[in-house]
């Protein structure tokens, strides 16, 4: 075996000396073949799905002209007086409140759920871990708009279904990040607290929470930020907030108002993103 390898090595040196490859390439024979096959498969799948979905690829290039046309002719002077009136501003405030409450409830719920769903500190790996995982998975995979529709059907229009939908969204969002953070902690402290005879709950409070506190705060702010982003359009499906105005204007084809509302959404989200980035930066420095 060893001599075989040596022989191989020698022969490779020999060939390189006698016949140097013309160009350097990063990947050698079997790897490069797999790579090309992978590219080919991806390319074929792209073409096949374009075919299957009947996508008018030609329109992609003419789209920009039409989009520009549309923006300048139909949407251009945004109706700013509309977004500055008092009613609309009240709805903006309500959107902020809705996002705030939804994120808060979601974070509060996801603390125990992420305790169940972290493999290293879960009270029982047999039943609690899969249950926690499943809750997070289900909340995460159903889109927040579908949650909104469901809750609007069950409890009617208004901001309450929006808050519940955002709670579900935040459980999925924060729960996953929370439990990932818990799974990365040092187990020394956990062992120490456990060896003093603490029950799983005490272990969680005294060994796990202090280690993840800072990271969780950052994640919570991020959750709020994302919840706000979602809250701006939740109203489109019947929950309260600015999305309701958006739907109204879209369906009446009042494009100038639509562009004004979109503008206000973008501004608000950028503001919230800058604020959340600032706060997260500050918190991570505190660590």
């Amino acid at each position, binding site marked *: 075996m060893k001599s075989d390898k040596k022989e191989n090595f020698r022969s490779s040196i020999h060939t390189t000396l006698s016949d140097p490859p013309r160009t350097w390439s990063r990947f050698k024979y079997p790897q490069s073949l797999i790579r090309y096959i992978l590219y080919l498969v991806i390319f074929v799948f792209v073409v096949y799905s374009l075919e299957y*979905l009947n996508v008018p690829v030609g329109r992609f290039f003419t*789209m920009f002209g039409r989009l520009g046309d549309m923006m300048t002719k139909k949407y251009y002077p945004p109706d700013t007086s509309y977004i500055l009136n008092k009613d609309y501003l009240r709805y903006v405030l309500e959107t902020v409140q809705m996002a*705030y409450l939804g994120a808060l409830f979601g974070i509060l719920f996801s603390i125990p759920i992420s305790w169940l769903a972290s493999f290293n500190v879960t009270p029982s790996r047999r039943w609690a871990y899969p249950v926690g995982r499943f809750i997070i998975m289900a909340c995460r*995979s159903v*889109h927040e*708009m579908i949650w909104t529709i469901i809750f609007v*059907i069950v409890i009617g229009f208004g901001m*309450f279904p929006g808050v519940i939908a955002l709670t579900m969204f935040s459980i999925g969002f924060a729960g996953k990040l929370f439990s990932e953070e818990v799974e990365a902690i040092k187990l020394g402290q956990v062992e120490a607290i456990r060896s003093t005879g603490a029950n799983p709950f005490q272990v969680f409070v005294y060994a796990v929470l202090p280690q993840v506190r800072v990271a969780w705060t950052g994640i919570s702010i991020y959750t709020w930020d994302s919840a706000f982003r979602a809250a701006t359009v939740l109203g489109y499906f019947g929950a309260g907030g600015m999305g309701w105005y958006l739907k109204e204007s879209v369906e009446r084809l009042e494009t100038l108002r639509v562009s004004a509302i979109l503008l206000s959404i973008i501004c608000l*989200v950028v503001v919230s993103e800058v604020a959340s980035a600032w706060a997260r930066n500050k918190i991570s420095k505190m660590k």
Partner: protein
Amino acid sequence: MMAQSSIKKNHIDIILQHRRRTKTIRYCLYALLLLLVLWSIEITIIKDTDWERIGGLGTILKGIARFFPPDLSLIKYLFKPTVETFMIAFLGTMLAILLAIPVVWFGAHNITPSRAITYPIGRAAMTLSRSVHEIVWALIFVSAVGLGAFPGILAVSMRSIGFISKVSAESIEDVDRRPIEAIKAVGGNTFQVILFGIIPQVIPVFIGNAIFQWDINIRRATIMGLVGAGGLGLTLERQLLMYNHQGVTTVIIAILLIITLGEIISYYARKAVI
């Protein structure tokens, strides 16, 4: 030792005072937060809800019971939209990868062509793409290119450009400088520096993020149909319009299945890349 402790005593007093002050500030902050929460609850939940329509727990349970059992006769119609959703997510991610390349190039501070002009453009594109919700993107594209899967693909890709390019630009910004210097030392131009010095270092991050986004894009693709782009959302919308709530449950189960599948694939794909 003694002298030190006498000096330190003063210090300790200062620290204790400081601690007391931060504690007061913290409790004030907590109280403020609590008030804010109560105020929000009052406005959004207590005042804005039609409690009579909700009624008691019984009516809520009745409302939930309308969704069960799932309407199994719908299954045979679900295959095509599921495949479509999958493809919308896939094509959207592919397009996002293509479109993210110039954005990354513009938005990474150390390789941007001009720090005064292109850098802000790249950053603005990232923020814009991330800050507008996919529903809004879909609305814009449905009015620009018409109904069908195409606006869904565009909307999904627009939404994910921001994330892919932001993370990739950040990883380009703290790239290892030594390979770049080596390539400069052998006479490589800027293009060659980027191609051979930077891209090999960040490609795993880029691809990993693209796969992660693909996973999320399946989620996004499931709702594109609600505003007129194709996929499972269209089936969902149809069931909603027919008040067939049991069918809604079936569609949601299909969504759960497709997303679980996507998560499993993306887990193994990311493992293979990194």
